């Protein structure tokens, strides 16, 4: 569908820009945007409550984390706006550059002086003025674009990607993933990227054996890794502690149990904001990021926690809608990748809070405290809007 601009010369360039702005605002997927904003604000409140007991007093300001989270969200929205307006073709053209730059940033985490180790993972870069950023988050975006580019290339007509295209896409993903698994021990990110690839290859229309093969391969790889002790003990501990929280005496199961207690403690309506004994007593570790759902669960109850899931559901629904209605394969694949990323990351995070997924340390999109994650997820929203707008043109 396209709007035919009236070709009268009475309209000035300024009028055109105003029209453009109006149509941009009119054509935005507002449901998606509002759901994402709601999640970010809701997250700010939860982060605020979570940080009051331990982190915030250290900063000398009980509202410090509330403000920072809102600021991060605002920056994220700004980034999303920019991304949504980037010319589609330009984006495709610069995808290889983006990929290479992202990968170099990832490698840079190991450079002394720039790379920073936080919570045992050498996954952070020191950026003057911004604090620390996690290039792995941006790598996800670059990968989604790169894979979409390869799988959609020359096939905007009705043909499926060739096997060699799929192999290329897999190779593109494999290199940074191997690095992240090997040097950052970040199983969570690797699982998410794996999901992204499977989803994108499937939706690209590649032969069915690829889809089935990748699913089987993932299961086999996991079993082999555990069987042959390719994973570090603590990695297995993290993966298995959710099965039997009493089995592993290290921190992983302690956290899982404390999280379950916090959430179970909430009941239907919760203990009230700032009233959760588990939350305010700091029994649940990192509850401003990884375990943020325990705050919602304990203090705002089933209603409050379900609201998070429902809002995420809205984001996912809109994302899939955008993918379905996309004009070209590239757009559809980008939207699919973003949905796979956000939904699986949310599942992993909430699942570990609820004790049905291993503790892997991935943040909850929009809700968890943390700048990089917030920026990256908002950029993802920007990508969705971009695809959506192009369809609307």
């Amino acid at each position, binding site marked *: 569908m396209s709007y035919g601009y009236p070709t009268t010369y009475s309209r000035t360039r300024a009028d055109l820009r105003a029209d453009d702005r109006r149509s941009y605002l009119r054509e935005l997927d507002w449901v998606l945007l509002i759901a994402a904003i709601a999640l970010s604000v809701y997250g700010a409140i939860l982060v605020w409550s979570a940080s009051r007991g331990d982190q915030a007093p250290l900063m000398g300001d009980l509202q410090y984390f509330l403000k920072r989270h809102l600021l991060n969200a605002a920056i994220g929205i700004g980034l999303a706006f920019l991304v949504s307006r980037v010319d589609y073709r330009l984006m495709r053209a610069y995808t290889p550059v983006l990929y290479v730059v992202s990968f170099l940033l990832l490698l840079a985490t190991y450079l002394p002086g720039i790379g920073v180790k936080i919570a045992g993972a050498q996954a952070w870069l020191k950026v003057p003025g911004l604090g620390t950023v996690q290039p792995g988050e941006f790598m996800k975006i670059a990968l989604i674009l790169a894979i979409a580019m390869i799988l959609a290339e020359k096939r905007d007509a009705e043909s499926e990607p060739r096997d060699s295209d799929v192999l290329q896409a897999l190779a593109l993903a494999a290199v940074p993933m191997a690095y992240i698994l090997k040097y950052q021990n970040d199983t969570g990110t690797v699982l998410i990227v794996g999901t992204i690839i499977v989803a994108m290859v499937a939706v690209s229309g590649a032969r069915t054996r690829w889809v089935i093969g990748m699913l089987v391969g993932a299961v086999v790889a996991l079993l082999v890794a555990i069987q042959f002790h390719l994973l570090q003990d603590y990695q297995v501990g993290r993966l298995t502690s959710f099965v039997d929280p009493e089995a592993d005496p290290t921190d992983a199961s302690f956290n899982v149990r404390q999280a379950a207690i916090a959430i179970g*403690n909430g009941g239907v309506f919760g203990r009230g904001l700032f009233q959760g004994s588990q939350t305010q007593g700091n*029994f649940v570790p990192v509850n401003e990021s990884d375990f943020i759902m325990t705050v919602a669960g304990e203090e705002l109850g089933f209603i409050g926690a379900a609201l998070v899931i429902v809002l995420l559901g809205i984001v996912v629904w809109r994302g899939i809608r955008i993918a379905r209605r996309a004009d070209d394969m590239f757009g559809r694949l980008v939207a699919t990748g973003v949905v796979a990323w956000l939904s699986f990351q949310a599942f992993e995070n909430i699942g570990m809070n609820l004790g049905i997924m291993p503790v892997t340390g991935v943040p909850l999109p929009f809700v968890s405290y943390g700048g990089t994650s917030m920026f990256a997820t908002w950029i993802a929203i920007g990508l969705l809007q971009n695809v959506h707008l192009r369809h609307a043109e």
Partner: protein
Amino acid sequence: MSDRSTLRLMVFGVLVISLLGTLLGRLFYLQLVTGDSYRQSAADNGVREIVTPAVRGLVLDQVGRPLVANRTSLVVSVDRTVLERQPDDGVAVLQRLAQALGSDPTELSYRLELCGPRAHRKPPICWNGSPYQPIPVAKDVPTVTALKIMERRTAFPGVQAELEAVREYPEPYGVNGAHLVGYLGPVNEEELAVQKAAASTDPATKLRRNDLIGRAGAEREYDAQLRGKPGVTRLAVDKAGRVTGTLGTVDSTPGSYLVTSLDARLQSVTEKALADAIATARKANDPTTGRNYVADSGAAVVLDVRTGRVLSMASYPTYDPSVWVGGITAKEYNALISKENGLPLTSRAVQGLFAPGSTFKAFSTVGAANSGMGLNSSYQCPNVYRAGDRSFANHESRGYGTISLSRALEVSCNTVFYGIADTMWKSAGGLNAKPTAADPIATAAKSFGLGSRTGIDLPGESRGRVGSRAFKQALWDERHEAWCQAAAAGYPELRKTDPTQANLNTALDRENCTEGFRWREGDALNAAIGQGDTIITPLQLATGYAAIANGGTRWQPMIATALVRSNGKVIKAFTPKATGKVDASPATLAFLRKSLAGVTTDGTGRSPFKGFPLDRLPVASKTGSAQVDGKQSTSWFASFAPANNPRYAVVAMVSEGGTGSGTSGPIVRKIYEALFGVKGQSVNPASGVLVGGQPATTLPKVRSDGTPVVPAGQEGSPKIAAPPAAPAPTAAAVTSSASPGSASAGTGTGAGGPDSSGGFDGAAVVATVSSRAGRPRRGPPGRRGHPPTTPARRP
């Protein structure tokens, strides 16, 4: 775009939405279905219990003298978890600490190792307790040293000095009694696991990580009663351990006092007599071996024959129970378990097994009477008894010709008993007798309690055994396969170096394999004089002789007479318990009492009682010198007195000590002198060691403040270990600074100053925090230290 792509996108969408649905379902389950149990956990989570250990009960002798008491000690302990966080794993800290304490850093580090294959030392040097619990490394630290450590917190991370209630041994009359009272040790992981598995819910008897429990003697047997119930203060805390309020307090209940039938003064006499006899024996020459007696160990037991109560019981070698207080050092522990020191932890009286030798003849006499042989008949006492082609000699004595059975006991004539046993053996069917054939001597001996546990209220009692046809058969049933295999193999390894010995062993095994079940003539003869397979504990022999003395009742020996609350109220009185009647007629027992009295006046028991007023105080006795392969003989002296109206049974034994009368007799004589107040020819029990001249008939009084009342002049100058010069305010200061970050947990209530009235301390105790969830506290490193301490004073 292809339909395939769109279809797959839709499938993907459904999958994603169902993932989120799964989360909703799980959320619903956690919060709405099982929420209640989590709410309870959340409530418990914020609770820490400050456990104030109960003051452990005292152990008193029969007139109230404390054998075990309490005092306070400054104990230095080290938290491994803090040390491990040091850049050098705490090596430097240990260096400094060793220097401050004047000990060796390596030794110190061994004490911090968790017991296991990688530890350099075995328990109890290595740490058998919880890895999260501070490990005590030094006791009775001078206040100056403790202050030095506590003032330089940064130089000693993870190190703390605290006042703790520890056991004290006042040693009235210099008594030791280590094997009777035992000692304490920290509870270990296994016991905690067993308790967890048993799901014991009684909070009063629940073991907690920091608990000390009885590891030997009465401390172990009556651990639950002595331990008392800990006081618990429930505090609301956050995860970092910051106290946010008090939820409730339950005061501790001090442990019960254990009143025993032991008499400290008599025990002291018994121990000294035993030690003296062993010292004398070691200076005496053994004519058989030409060397001095080794006299490696010994025991002496005094029982009240009317009740079976133990009045004293000594074992040599012994040890100082106070070495266990506040943790034992490697050197001390090695001394306790070394063979060179004669394994002092083993109670020879209760756990040691020895051939009874001729003391067994009293039971053989009963067997003879039971099988119809005349007690007043005449018996042949030749120098050598011939059975088949073998000769059995009279070891201790010569031949006496035709004598009475009474005389045979007096002179301990082996050949008379060989004859009796041979007659029985032949009438039972000889070599081909059935295993179930009558064995009157063994049957009689067993009825006197030999070869089975007496049931004394002390842990680790040995069973022993009585050699018999049935025993032989049972042994063969168990071992014959191994014997046959060894005989068939023929000792190939040994054969390379010593073919003669290998042949010998093979022949022995072959015989055992084919014939080992047979109760041969020689076995029967040896058994009749307490040799061969029979091995018993000194306590068993004392119980048996007490049964002869009291007319045939087998009492269960007992050291406990009562459990008394610290305010003096009697909780439980232990009444004497008869375990059965012996298999002997009153006439037989009367015959024995008379004959055994003759042993002391006219027989082998005479020499140690030379000059003793036997006319006023007749003593019934039987000597024994049991032959032991490759060792010097075991000296025995079993007795009871007065022979005409028996009150006490006294048994003494010295391993590798020579003859019964020569080495053990003097022990028994000294004990009777003390019991009956024998001076020269006068006998006056009132001037003896027992208050009132006889075993106490009433329980000692305990004042409402917990002080036992000891008759004036009978205190026995108890040794009260000087408290480590820790006046109350100093102690409080030390303990409170030991726990930064636990500020409001209650300190400075004023530690109890040492209260030495009555020979024991009023007990300042240290409270410890244990997580209700059973997990170590998880706080920031600086706060993870030791729990708050509350020096509390028992009301």
